[in-house]
């Protein structure tokens, strides 16, 4: 089949070449649709269900909202697990689906379930699904600010409430319409509300209850349509406007008439514009602000959406009230642009280097260009493939592309064709067309099998990467997929386009002379090779010694998971003790920001404290997510200061602010952490059950048990309690004695402290809540609260403390549930001990020493789970892959011995990779690991090229020694070429310092180092080894015949 393809390509060369245009066209078209981002999306398939339950404490939220919803979710198709948390006024259930589930399908399922259980949760509460976005969704943030000294229309200075109004009613509606934006989330400022603040004494005077006031407001605030009448043929609509529109109108609402005197709102209450009881706030540069976040729809192109949002914001800015502006503070475009620039630069420079090398070694510009043309074509084909398979372009997916590696197959084909063409021409001057085509066909088919084979092996080694799951899988699948696609594209091209192009364009006489570089190389190589063949033992021992040394070196290298992409900015999460109030937390956050801002490297710093309007990240008020936007490094006093050092300096300075704990990360990283969450420690023991105190007790028992086990570190029990709560506990008999009911009492307390909604005040499109609640000074005064007069049905009153006990208590701050049951987690890390045995010991000791009450059970989780499953999977997949490669080699050579000889190239390649890492002081990481994988493929390819030729020569000439020398010398050029292009293609990547380069650098470093060692060793050790192993059989007749490779 390959032969007929080759023949077709050579004979119908123009037709085949015109395929280029198809590839180019498809590639360019796909490029428009390619999702581009900085990093791969590692979010799982999840949907958040948020229910805002104003005034509900964690326990009530769990009981009334979380539980019914969570229970209803059981049995959904594709459901992986659910976890939930219940906080003050918020229930959040995260529903995680199995990988590969369509998010829209999942949301549909959820929607159906939610509509069924609407009636089971308290009326007025609406469960809502979070935005259709992933961890990469927060692409654009802006603050709404007022210029110093500017004033509102009514002459007052702009305050947080007025700015929030601008955000909610001018900016947000417009931004939400930008294509690709799924949600505009607001935090900060205050929702404007109209507050009716009754004076309890006045209420007593007129014998009014909170209900009376609320009802009066509700009944006097409606527009009513009354149909139409026809008069003289004309239709006349009838309506009765009765909506309240201003404070004066609210004040004049009559509550009731006492002895003919109307009692109006203003007689018993103050009416004012007031602040909501907010759950979140935002700060910028030490001041309160209003922060908007545009969330990108899942699967959109973050760069173009962020750009569109930025453009729209500029337009909106023109229509804002004078003195108010919306300032972008975080724009993903910047990061993506930087990352893409890095990738582009790497790829472009790599490609250029490859072209130069090809030209130098081939000595023929046309041949070099034909080979180099494979690069853009393979790239375009890859882009088409990426779009088809839904892989996004980012640092990871494009990070492993090495064009040197990709053109390897083409290089081998072109090199051989040129050699054969020049040989043929030396015999008979310019070749006639037919003969030339024949030569090209022969030359191609001669090497196409080893070349396809080699490339095939390089592709096969990427298979284990596909068996990675979880975060590693999400990070590295795209990378492997892209490389495999590029390799396949190049492979197809090397049997179609490349021969066609050679046939079409290599018309001129090929002056294939051994150019100076090759001659020098050969002159150098021959004596070394002959020496090596003499000093076999020394060479082989040296190789083994090198291997041992590098293995030892590898064990001394540092380790990290994935080199973290430098996002160019910092995120500082400030954590404060549970129960810290929002205003206190904001004050502390402002102090933090002032400290951060004192660093000359910082451009701006802003933060979210507590939970935003849409609870995408349900933070309690005691936590603030700070974003530190840095100036470009060249504006720093010391441009060479590393970001990690800057973070350290910052942390040291921030430690002088008391009461805060800090966690440093980066914006996207922070978001991923929040979304993926789960147990982030090595081992998590989850205790499931009903009673929180029992759970906590058991958890603490487990924690102390774990602390006693060798290797345990950072043992922690999940923080569940610590939220101060004021309980108003009714005395039931007293309540009954005064003719009240517990419900009525609770209503009064809720209305007085939390406030009660009495409808909406409309102001054009804008609508504001009308609330009835106690005046602020009274609300805050606990002593007063205990005296709060409660109206009795007979017109009298009773102070609250007569009918209820007021009690301050610490209660659960948050209730976590997993798969429908309450849980408390004990986490631990393991140091200085093997994790597997640690987990086993914990399990054994917990089983034997701890008895849980009935109805309570344990589950073990944490990264050890991933470790187990990953090592199990890799334990199967890696040997299988090795066997496949070996099998392929055996098929190729029909000799296990030869296959194993080629395989020795792999550890030899490894030595260089390890050395390179060690020299550059880089840790071992998965990125480096991927480099080793690519390397092993290249090493095999090198050996294959070398060995197949030696065998061929041995067969035809019969002298092993001469075959080795000649073969090695003839194959010096392709081996050097493939090695040089592959390693030079990675050089820009290894040296680049731009944004995102840190992810690619280890990979490139490993490949370059490995290729150098592997090439040197292939050239010396392989022939030596071959000669040594076959020394007893210098008989050509007994050399096994090539099977696959000869066709």
């Amino acid at each position, binding site marked *: 089949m390959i032969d007929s393809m080759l023949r077709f390509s050579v004979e119908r060369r123009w037709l085949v070449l015109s395929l280029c245009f198809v590839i180019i066209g498809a590639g360019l078209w796909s490029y428009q649709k390619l999702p581009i981002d900085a990093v791969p999306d590692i979010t799982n398939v999840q949907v958040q269900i948020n229910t805002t339950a104003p005034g509900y404490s964690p326990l009530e939220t769990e009981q009334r909202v979380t539980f019914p919803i969570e229970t209803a979710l059981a049995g959904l198709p594709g459901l992986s697990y659910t976890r939930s948390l219940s906080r003050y006024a918020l229930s959040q259930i995260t529903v995680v689906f199995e990988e590969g589930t369509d998010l829209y399908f999942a949301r549909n399922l959820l929607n159906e379930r939610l509509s069924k259980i609407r009636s089971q949760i308290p009326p007025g509460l609406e469960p809502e699904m979070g935005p259709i976005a992933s961890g990469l969704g927060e692409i654009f943030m802006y603050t709404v600010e007022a210029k110093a000294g500017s004033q509102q229309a009514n002459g007052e200075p702009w305050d947080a409430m007025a700015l929030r109004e601008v955000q909610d009613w001018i900016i947000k509606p417009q931004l939400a319409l930008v294509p690709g934006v799924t949600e505009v989330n607001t935090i900060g400022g205050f929702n404007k509300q109209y507050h009716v603040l009754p004076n309890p004494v006045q209420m*007593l005077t007129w014998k009014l209850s909170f209900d009376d006031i609320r009802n009066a407001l509700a009944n006097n605030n409606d527009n009513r349509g009354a149909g139409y009448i026809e008069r003289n043929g004309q239709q006349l609509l009838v309506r009765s406007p009765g909506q309240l529109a201003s404070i004066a109108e609210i004040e004049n609402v009559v509550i009731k008439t006492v002895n003919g005197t109307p009692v109006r709102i203003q007689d018993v209450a103050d009416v004012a514009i007031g602040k909501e009881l907010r759950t979140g706030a935002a700060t910028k540069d030490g001041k309160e602000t209003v922060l908007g976040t545009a969330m990108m729809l899942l699967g959109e192109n973050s760069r173009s959406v962020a750009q569109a949002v930025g453009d729209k914001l500029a337009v909106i800015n023109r229509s804002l009230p004078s003195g108010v502006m919306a300032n972008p503070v975080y724009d993903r475009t910047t990061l993506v642009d930087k990352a893409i620039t890095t990738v582009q630069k790497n790829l472009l420079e790599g490609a250029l280097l490859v072209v130069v090398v090809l030209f130098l070694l081939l000595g023929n510009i046309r041949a070099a260009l034909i080979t180099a043309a494979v690069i853009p074509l393979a790239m375009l084909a890859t882009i088409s493939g990426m779009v088809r398979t839904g892989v996004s372009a980012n640092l990871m997916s494009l990070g492993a592309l090495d064009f040197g590696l990709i053109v390897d197959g083409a290089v081998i084909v072109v090199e051989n064709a040129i050699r054969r063409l020049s040989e043929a021409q030396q015999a008979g001057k310019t070749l006639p067309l037919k003969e030339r085509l024949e030569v090209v066909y022969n030359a191609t088919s001669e090497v196409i099998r080893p070349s396809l084979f080699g490339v095939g092996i390089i592709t096969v080694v990427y298979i284990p990467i596909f068996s990675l799951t979880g975060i590693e899988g999400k990070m590295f699948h795209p990378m492997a997929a892209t490389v495999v696609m590029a390799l396949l594209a190049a492979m197809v091209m090397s049997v179609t386009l490349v021969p066609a192009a050679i046939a079409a364009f290599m018309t001129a006489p090929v002056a294939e002379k051994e150019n100076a570089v090759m001659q020098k190389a050969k002159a150098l190589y021959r004596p070394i090779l002959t020496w090596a063949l003499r000093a076999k033992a020394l060479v082989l021992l040296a190789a083994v010694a090198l291997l041992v040394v590098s293995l030892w070196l590898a064990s001394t290298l540092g380790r990290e998971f994935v080199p973290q992409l430098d996002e160019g900015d910092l995120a500082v999460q400030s954590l404060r003790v549970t129960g810290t109030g929002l205003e206190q937390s904001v004050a502390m956050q402002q102090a933090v920001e002032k400290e951060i801002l004192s660093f000359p490297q910082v451009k701006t710093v802003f933060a979210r404290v507590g939970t935003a309007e849409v609870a995408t990240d349900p933070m309690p008020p005691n936590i603030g997510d700070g974003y530190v936007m840095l100036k470009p490094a060249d504006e720093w006093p010391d441009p060479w200061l590393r970001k990690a050092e800057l973070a350290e300096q910052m942390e040291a300075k921030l430690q002088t602010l008391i009461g805060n704990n800090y966690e440093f990360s980066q914006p996207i990283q922070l978001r991923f952490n*929040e979304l993926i969450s789960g147990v982030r420690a090595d081992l998590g023991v989850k205790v499931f059950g009903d009673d929180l105190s029992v759970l906590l007790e058991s958890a603490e028992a487990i924690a102390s048990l774990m602390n006693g086990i060798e290797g345990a570190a950072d043992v922690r029990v999940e923080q569940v309690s*610590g939220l101060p709560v004021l309980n108003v506990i009714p005395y039931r008999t007293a309540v009954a004695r005064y003719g009240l009911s517990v419900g009525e009492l609770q209503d009064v307390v809720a209305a007085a402290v939390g406030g009660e909604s009495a409808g909406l005040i409309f102001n054009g499109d804008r609508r504001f809540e009308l609330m009835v609640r106690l005046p602020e000074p009274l609300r805050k005064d606990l002593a007063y609260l205990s005296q709060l007069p409660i109206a009795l049905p007979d017109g009298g009153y009773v102070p609250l403390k007569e009918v209820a006990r007021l009690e301050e208590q610490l209660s659960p701050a948050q209730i976590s549930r997993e798969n429908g049951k309450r849980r408390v987690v004990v986490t631990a890390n393991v140091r200085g001990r093997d994790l597997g045995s640690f987990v086993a010991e914990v399990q054994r000791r917990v089983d034997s020493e701890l008895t849980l009450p009935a109805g309570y059970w344990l589950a073990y989780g944490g*990264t050890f789970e991933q470790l187990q499953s990953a090592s199990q999977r890799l334990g199967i997949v890696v040997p299988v892959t090795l066997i496949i490669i070996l099998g392929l080699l055996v098929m190729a050579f029909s000799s296990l011995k030869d296959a194993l000889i080629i395989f020795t190239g792999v*550890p030899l390649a490894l030595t260089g990779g390890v050395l390179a890492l060690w020299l550059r002081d880089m840790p071992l990481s998965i990125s480096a690991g991927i480099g080793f994988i690519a390397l092993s493929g290249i090493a095999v390819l090198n050996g294959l090229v070398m060995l197949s030729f030696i065998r061929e020569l041995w067969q035809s000439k019969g002298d092993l020694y001469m075959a080795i020398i000649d073969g090695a010398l003839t194959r010096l050029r392709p081996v050097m070429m493939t090695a040089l292009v592959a390693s030079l293609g990675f050089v820009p990547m290894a040296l680049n310092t731009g944004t995102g380069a840190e992810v690619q650098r280890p990979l490139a470093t490993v490949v370059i180092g490995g290729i150098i060692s592997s090439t040197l060793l292939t050239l010396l050790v392989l022939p030596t080894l071959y000669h040594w192993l076959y020394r007893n059989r210098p008989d050509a007749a007994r050399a096994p015949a090539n099977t696959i490779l000869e066709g």
Partner: protein
Amino acid sequence: MNLTFNQTLLTLILLAVLTAPATAAPHDHDDHEEYPTEKSHDDHEEGELELENAAIEKAEITLEKAAPAELTITATLFGKTEPDPQRVSHVKARYSGQIMSVAPSLGDTVKQGQELLVVEANDSLKRYTIKAPIGGTVVDLHANKGEFAGESALMTIADFGKLWAVLSVFPQDADRVKNGQSVTLSAGPRSAQSTIRFLNPGSDSQPTVMAHVPLDNSDGRWTPGLLVQANVVTDTFTVPLAVRNDAIHQVNGERVVFVRSEHGFEVVDVSIGRRDAHFSEVTAGLHVGDRYAVGNSYLLKAELEKSSASHEH
């Protein structure tokens, strides 16, 4: 994660090396990025919060000296103003007859002994004058010239220069509200000082005791029937040692006060006795003269407990 990774990486290398022994995996990963390590104050014992002077200054923590203080315990009561029953007079005709003239109009102020009405008695046809029994304001008038004066009251004269505030004392406060305690009465913008004159049980359907407080209304700012709030000082005493309420925090279920020490603050467990709106009596744990944190002292509690601050989903 690091461990997974170690293993993964190893296996990947295994792929490359074929024979690589699994020696290279001591689990000595450094993971200070992912797991925040316990911070500073864990290396000295509870009860001491070591802080730099600069940090304390930056936090703007204000200090006060623990000292004796006068505590004032109050109770908040509600009630109504009522006219003094002794200062309300319903004027009637002694002999029924025809009203010949009426001197004051409704709302006029009359003096004691001032002529109010002239009535011609039916029996004797003699005219007699009715004089004001008390000084006050004519608040009700049912008499016009020529009308018949019979059994019913002709006019009501009330003296609002003195009112009573009648306060409802609910059972929980009944023990401590006593005669003679000083009271601050307030209703809207008005306020006045007085003392409780006497207490008597209220109506039999209510478990309340009514506290009667005389209210001087010579300037006429108060009206009867006004709902008033009363702050009754039920007890005043001096305690040998007190701290501001804002200085007391709950730490691990104990009440503590932060006392400035040489290297920061000492966390002092205190026993709290009586307290009023501003001060709390300290019965144990503190000494007179100790400088304790008041303003922004919450930051100290936050610092003390911050190692527990975490963000888990």
